[in-house]
């Protein structure tokens, strides 16, 4: 029995919600707008909102000053690679905990999550030294492994909660019909788990893309992703709001677009399936 909602009430809701949405989104909108201004217009008093001479100059300057494409490629490689590696390791682990639980399963899951709470800074130096010794400093491979490890607990948790919802009877039945373990995972489990795996992948790409402790401390020139690209604009060299905005827009645009397209899948993944 849906209650009839007056148009008046609906209009009021719409107005309030849109205003709040606008305020929350405003910093991003403002950054994007400023990226199309000249430096002088960017610090104009009063601030110019839409009526200024739109220019692409800042993007050209940023690309020229710091090779954007290389940072972008590093970000894609690191986010994609660490997620793929994580999934390969996490799927069997989550499978075994979801379908062959033992009385220690819960403790193992909690322990895994607790490794996320270890402060990275506490182990920065040993990792740094280890990387120097192994020649992994400023290498994409080394950083990819670190990013995989820090997100592995989350990948396992998410997959576990998704797998847990798949009725075990279906797998039993497949087993009765003589499916091998490989067939069972490949042809029975995987198709049912695709949505869950997809949202796990998405969330982890976003987390890895935005990770800003290890990527800042373990890279220099070669392996640096977009987080380092943007950090190079933090040193104060006078006012350069327009260029900063162009660089910021370039750093967040790919993941913002990906995030918007996938927000529905993300929500479930973010809650570890615990909120429906």
């Amino acid at each position, binding site marked *: *029995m*849906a*209650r009839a909602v007056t148009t008046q009430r609906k209009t009021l809701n719409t107005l309030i*919600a*849109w205003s*709040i*949405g606008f305020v*929350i*989104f405003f*910093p991003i909108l*403002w950054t994007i707008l400023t990226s199309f201004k000249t430096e002088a217009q960017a610090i104009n*008093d*009063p*601030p110019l909102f839409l009526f200024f001479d739109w220019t692409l100059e800042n993007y050209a300057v940023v690309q020229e000053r710091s090779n954007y494409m290389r940072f972008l490629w590093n970000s894609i490689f690191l986010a994609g690679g660490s997620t793929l590696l994580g999934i390969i390791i996490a799927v*069997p*682990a989550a499978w075994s905990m979801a379908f*062959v639980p*033992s009385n220690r399963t819960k403790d193992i899951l909690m322990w*895994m999550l*607790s*490794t*996320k*709470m270890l*402060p*990275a800074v*506490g*182990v*920065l*130096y*040993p990792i740094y030294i*280890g990387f120097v010794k192994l020649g992994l400093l400023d290498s994409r491979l080394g950083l990819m492994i670190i990013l995989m*490890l820090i997100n*592995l607990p989350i990948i396992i948790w998410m997959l576990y909660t998704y797998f847990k919802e798949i009725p075990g009877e279906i797998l039993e039945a497949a087993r009765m019909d003589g499916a091998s373990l490989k067939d069972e995972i490949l042809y029975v489990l995987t198709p049912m788990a695709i949505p869950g795996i997809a949202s796990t992948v998405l969330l982890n790409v976003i987390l890895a*893309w*935005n990770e*800003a402790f290890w990527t*800042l401390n373990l890279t220099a020139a070669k392996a640096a992703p*977009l*987080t380092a690209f*943007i*950090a190079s*604009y*933090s040193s104060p060299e006078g*006012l350069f*709001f327009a260029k*900063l*905005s162009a660089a910021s827009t370039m*750093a*967040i645009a790919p*993941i*913002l677009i990906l*995030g*918007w397209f996938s927000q529905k899948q*993300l*929500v*479930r993944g*973010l*809650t570890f399936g*615990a*909120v429906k």
Partner: protein
Amino acid sequence: MATQHSRSVARFMLAPAVILLLGWMLVPLTATLIFSFKKYLPLRGGDLGWVGFDNYVRFVSSSAFWPSVMATLTIIGSVLVITIILGIVLALLLDQPMWGQGIVRILVIAPFFVMPTVSALVWKNMFMDPINGILAHLWKFFGAAPVEWLTQASMQSIVMIVSWQWLPFATLILLTSVQSLDREQLEAAEMDGAPWISRFWHLILPHLARAITIVLLIQTIFLLSVFAEIFVTTGGAFGTKTLTYLIFQRVLESQNIGLGSAGGVYAIILANIVAIFLMRAVGKNLDS
């Protein structure tokens, strides 16, 4: 009906993840423990031998220690309170009938996708700059003197930036939960004349408990290690030096590995206290 065979297969499949995480935890942790008992200055003589608990005593007796613990807890606590309260309000609002709900959702979730370095830089320069920032223009518009955010109200500024980043997360999780509320029960309560506040308190809030727990758990994990937001904005000055940042300075800026490692051990202990507290609360809420 797990057979002996499937049990051993399962153990075999779990092994890589467990071994990797165990290695990831134990190897650097052991190294940190060893360093913490040494005087170790890579740029000034290197390994200068064992010093017992000296580093631990020095780290705690440093005047920066307790303020840094307080700063860490203040950031976590304030951001949690702000994001959860505003998140509930926003979730209830977004659940109302309106036009363009999908677009509002997209606007609200956007900050979550912005990398911390970018949001810190944008807030610092384009919003909190005392001369050219938007907030300064806004203050002037209302005839007030612009605030030097990052020096005069540094902690509030950091909390504001971090809350902006995490509000979308809290809102989305809570909204998902609000949408599964039992409408008929709510309407029945309304018809019975239950005032809004008691409907919220007795029906809505208990229903949201699980979602709130999830928000608490996940945000705390990420808030414990807030780094880029401070690195880019105040650099740990003006009372915003968290424990993470203090250790970062000891290790990387003063290159005092022994002292920094002792700090690392303290940070791990603090994280564990928070973790145990959280796991208790969450474990209870997730079981049902």
